[in-house]
Each structure stands twice: as structure tokens, then as C-alpha cells.
């Protein structure tokens, strides 16, 4: 298990937990990011990250991305 920001482009993950306060959890859940959901990293650099959630693309600031705890999927 690791923080999303350590993931590499093209890798797939399952969200395990969100480590943040209520507003962070809510915002992410509203976008469809919550424990159990599978996502893929499209682009990751020193700044914001772009992930794919099914057909949707979501841009996440680094700060909030770091609060998403994920597990690598093989």
C-alpha cells in the first residue's frame, strides 16, 4: 500500500483509503474516488496528476493526491 503520488504512469491501482479530513474525503468521493474504486495513472510529474477512472479523466493537485492510499494491481 502506498500513496498515489508514488505511482508511475500507466500503472493501475485500487483505492484503499483516503487519509484526510472530511472535506477532502467528500470532494474525492463526489468525483468517484473512494475505497474499492480502480484507477489508472495517465500522467504524473512534479505537479498535479491526471488519473483515469473508467472513461473519466480527473486532474488532482499533488497535495490531495498524496492523501489517496492505493494498492497496486497486477
Amino acid at each position, binding site marked *: 500500500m502506498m500513496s498515489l503520488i508514488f505511482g508511475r504512469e500507466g500503472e493501475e491501482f485500487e483505492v484503499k483509503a483516503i487519509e484526510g479530513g472530511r472535506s477532502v474525503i467528500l470532494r*474525492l468521493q463526489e*468525483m468517484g474516488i473512494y475505497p474499492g474504486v480502480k484507477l489508472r495513472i*495517465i*500522467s504524473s510529474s512534479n505537479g*498535479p496528476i*491526471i488519473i*483515469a477512472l473508467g*472513461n473519466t479523466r480527473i*486532474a488532482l493537485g499533488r497535495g*490531495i493526491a498524496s492523501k489517496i492510499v492505493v494498492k497496486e494491481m497486477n
Partner: protein
Amino acid sequence: MENSGILMTKKLRVALIGNPNSGKSTIFNALTGGNAHVGNWPGVTVEKKEGRFKYKDFDVIVTDLPGTYSLTSYSIDERIARDFIVKELPDVVVCITDATNLARNLYLLILLRELGVNTILNLNMSDMIEGKIEINIEKMEELLGIPVVMTSGIKNIGIKDLKEAIISVKNIKPEPLKINYGTDIEETIKHIEQQLGKLSSPYNKRFIILSILQEDPQIINEVKNEGFEKVIESAQIKASQLEKEFGFDLETEIIEKRYGFIQSILKQCTKRLISVEEKLTISDKIDKIVTNKYLGILIFALFMWITFQLTFKIGGIFADYIDQFFTWLGEIVRSIKISHIFSSLIVDGVIGGIGSVFVFLPNILVLFLFLSFLEDVGYMARAAFVMDKIMHAIGLPGRSFISMILGFGCNVPAIMSARTIPEEKDRLLTILINPFMSCTARLPVYIMFTSVFFVKNQGLILLSLYALGIIVAILSAKLFRVTIPSLKGKISPLVMELPPYRLPTIKGILIHTWERSREFLKKAGTIIFLGVIVVWLLSFFPQSYEYGSEGTLIGRLGHILSPLLKPAGFGFWQAGVALIFGIIAKEIVVGTFGTLFGGEENLPNIIPRLFTPLSAFSFMVMSLLYIPCIATIGVIYRETGSIKWTLFSLTYSIIVGYLTAILFYQIGLLFI
């Protein structure tokens, strides 16, 4: 032609709700034919759109609610949507969803069903799922208990079915949805339900209790105000007990159960037709380039540069025609034999004043055309993404950058573009600092003075003025963030959906362009008109003096101001008058000097006699910062919906302009 008398048409009120990027505006336009009345929700900067359509013997009013993902009370958009549904009680709520992304889009529908609202599920973007996902509509209608209509807003498919569903559902009151939240939570709900007596709240009890458990501040407050404080307290104690015992956060649990319910419905109603090979789509490939750390900024700069060049080249051509038109109009009126007062009122006042602002219109139209294109194609979200880190350092979200760039063209559409910024605080901040971005109307003032005093360094001086504007904007943003309570707080973190790139329809772009430009004309136009009349009154009376000369009211006002302007280096009445006229539209400053000194040709001779290079610079600084033009003031009022913030903006910029001009002049004196 309809043969319906007044008695035959029945009225219906419909609200449209849905996630951002679900194609809600396209559906709104398809239903109402683009005849929308656009305003603000009272007291806030959120846009409110209303339209209507006639179908069979119904007259339907459609209200477009802000795009939201949920109905908590956390963001202003959600509060507005929720309040409208629950307090205005529309007859039907249409929940518009992106059929390619149902898992998340249905969350909002579930909330509406829990609220017990009369809902229709609209599966939009059906053109995108063809051949990829199969949806069993009848099964879905059965499981959800409401009509489900499939549409493709962009291809105009299914709109009639939607209208049919709207008129046929209005009399049905569906049972509120009850999701099983697990024994522990259900028991807690029952327990609280028994304790709560009759509530005057418009929400149903179950929804209220769920909201209490999710610590929704607005609902908790309402319940407390009805005397149930003890119940709230015990509910909160019970909630923390549960959280400790089972190790889960109640709110997260509730949301997860809702998603679980959605998943089970989707399993029964949808089928993927092709194997989901998560390949990179074309959108992703484009994004790799467009959102690249370095290339992304270059590409953004390129797009903005192209947009501006085209705006001012094309806009400029038409602007000249409009200018000529108004001049011609003025001459015609002058030649008509009517009373002197009336003639002056129309020619000097109305035509002169309004004409110089209408000259903006081509620029605004073209600018909005390009921006609407960039937005509809999906690029703007990427631009906000690319600029986010830089803007963060200033204390603003990435989207503000676009608004600031627009300000270099004209502050009016720039401030209007702040509408797309999700958080209210960020929106307000962006609006407040925008007037410091040096718009094109200030350019004639700079050019006039630099061609007299700074011929060799014209470019450098111009650049320094633009830079000064940016610096003041940035510093003001930081200042406001730190000192003003309602603007305090961290910048909202970037969590933004990047919609797939799509080829926009020409109709769509034109509708968006017209919507924005029309607003400039309507509202800003009324304030400009009033301002123009006031300035005309001051310049015309007393009649014994020539229009705008020393003896008139405005000349006297200039005289009163002159001692105040002395520390900034231009303490003579003509400067005061020019600055007052500049409030209508900043380029009028040059024309005013021309009028006061007997013709613009005389200016190169007279200016050096009244100004020094230093005082010319401080005058330009004053022109840059001192007060937004009246069109901008009008738009600030319109976008903030608040007199308080508008007055604040005026006062702040006058003070900043005044003090900065004095600062430059006085410090400059020390060196010269």
C-alpha cells in the same frame, strides 16, 4: 398556430440538475431553444439560467441549477441546488447524467430519490456509448421507480421524449428511496426518528437524519433551531460511539453504501459490449503533450497569443466602423434643429459616451467566440490544470489565470469569465484583482504620454506599466487572502474533471458567445447610460460656459480635486476632469485632454507645459490603477451581486491608484 386560450395552457416548473460536464447546458439549450434569461442567484456569484418551452398544452419554465456532484451544504453550488429543489419545489427535477460514467453520475440521482423528489433520470451523451455499453432502460425504470430517458443533447436526439416524460410525470409522487445502510446505522436512524417530533423542515425525516449523521451544518442548525438540540447531541454521541466501535467514519460508510446500491443497479441494467481494454484514448495522447510541464505552458501561451491577436485585429476592424457610425450619427443629430440642451445631451452625452463603449462590442464578441470554442472543445480545463501550480503560489486557482489574461484585453469579459471558478472565495478574489490588469482602453493614455516624454523608451515604459498592474494584482490577492475574513483560508485543492475533447457544434459556440456578450450589453449598458448622463449633466451646466470647460460643474469639480492631485504631480483642473471622464471609459482621457486644449493636434505642445516626464509617469500609473471604468464597475456588481463588494473594489482601487501615483512622484522627485 395554437388554438389554446389562456385556460388551456398549464404551467409547469422544471429544474435541471447534474454533474458538471454531463451536457446539462446542451440539454438546457435543446429544451429552451437558447432563449435563456441569465442572472445570478441572489447574493452570490453563481450564474442562474432560466428558460421556457411550450409542449402540447403545457407552458414549461426550466431552471438550470449549478452543476454539482452531490447535495451537501459544503459548496455554494450544492446549497443553491438543494435549496431550490426543497424550497421552490419544482414540479419535476431532471437529473442529467453522462451515460458513459454512470457510476458516479447516479450518485446525485440517489440523493434526489432519497429526498423523495419527483425525478426523471436523463441518460445523456447516448451517442458516446453506442456499441460500447448496452443499457436496459425498462429494468432501470423498474429498479429506480422513475422514468428514464436517453438523449444525445449534442445531436438533438431524444429531446422530444424528454419533454414527453416531463409532462407525464408531474402528477406522480414517488416513494422516497430507502437504502439499507446496515444494521447499526439503521438502528441509529430509527432511534433518532423516535426522538424527533414534528419538524417544519421541507426535507423528509430520513434524509434529515442521514444528514445529521453526516454532520451537515445547515440541516443540523435548522433542527437545533426547532428546539431539538438534545436530539442532535445524543445523535452525535451515538455516531462517535459507532465510529469507535466499528472503526469506520459514518459519512464514508453512508456514501459507500450509496455507491454499493448504484453498483448493484448497474450490474442488473448495463452490459459492456466491448472488452474494457484501458488503452490510451486520443484525448489522453493529446493531453500528454498539452499538460506537459513545459510544453503545456508554451502551448497555453500560444493559444492565448493567437486569441488576442485575432480578437484585436478582427475586433479592431469592426470597432473602427462602429466609431465612424457613432460620429456620423452625432453629426446628423447636431444638424437637426432641436433645442441646444437636447442636442448636446444626445450628441455629447449619449452618443459620445455610449458610442465609445459600444466600440468594445466587436472585441468582446470575437474574444468570447474564441474562448467559447476553447471551452467547448475541452481545452480550458487543461489550461487551468497547467497554470494551477504557478497560480497556487499567488494564492489563486489555475482557472483564475485565464481571467487575468483576458483582463489585458478588456476587464468586462475577464470578470465574467470568473464564473467558471468553482469556489466562491476564489471567484471573488479573481474578480477583485482583475481591474489591475491593464486593459486595451488604457493604451491610448500611455501612448499619448510616452510619445511626448519617453520616445526612446516607449516599449520599456509600457512594459513597466503592465508589470506594475500585475504586481499590484498579485500583492492585492495576497493581502486580501490574509486580511479579509470572508476570503481567508486555503486555496481549494485541485480536483477537476478533464472532459474528453469533443468537436463543438457551431450552434453551441454561437449560443455561448451570444449569452456572454448579451450580458455585457444589457447590464453594463444600463450603468454606462446612467453614468454618461451624470457626466453630461456636470459638463453641460452652467450653460453659460462651453461644454466641459473650466466654469462648468465638472470643471469646478476638477478644481476641487486639483489640490489633492498636486502631490501626484498633476494638480491642475484639466487632469481632474480627464480622470473623471476616464471613469466612463478609460480611453476618453485622451479625447478629454483634446477637447480641453482645443484639439488633439495641440496636445504635443501643451502637454509638455503642464506635465514633466515624472508627472506623466505618475499620471499613467494613476490611469492604470485608479478606478475601474463604469462598464467594469457594472460587471463587478453584476457578477458579485453585492453592492458591498462593488464599493469595496471602487474604494480600494481609488486608494491604491492615488497612493501609488503619489509614491512614484514623490520618490521620483528625490532623484531628479
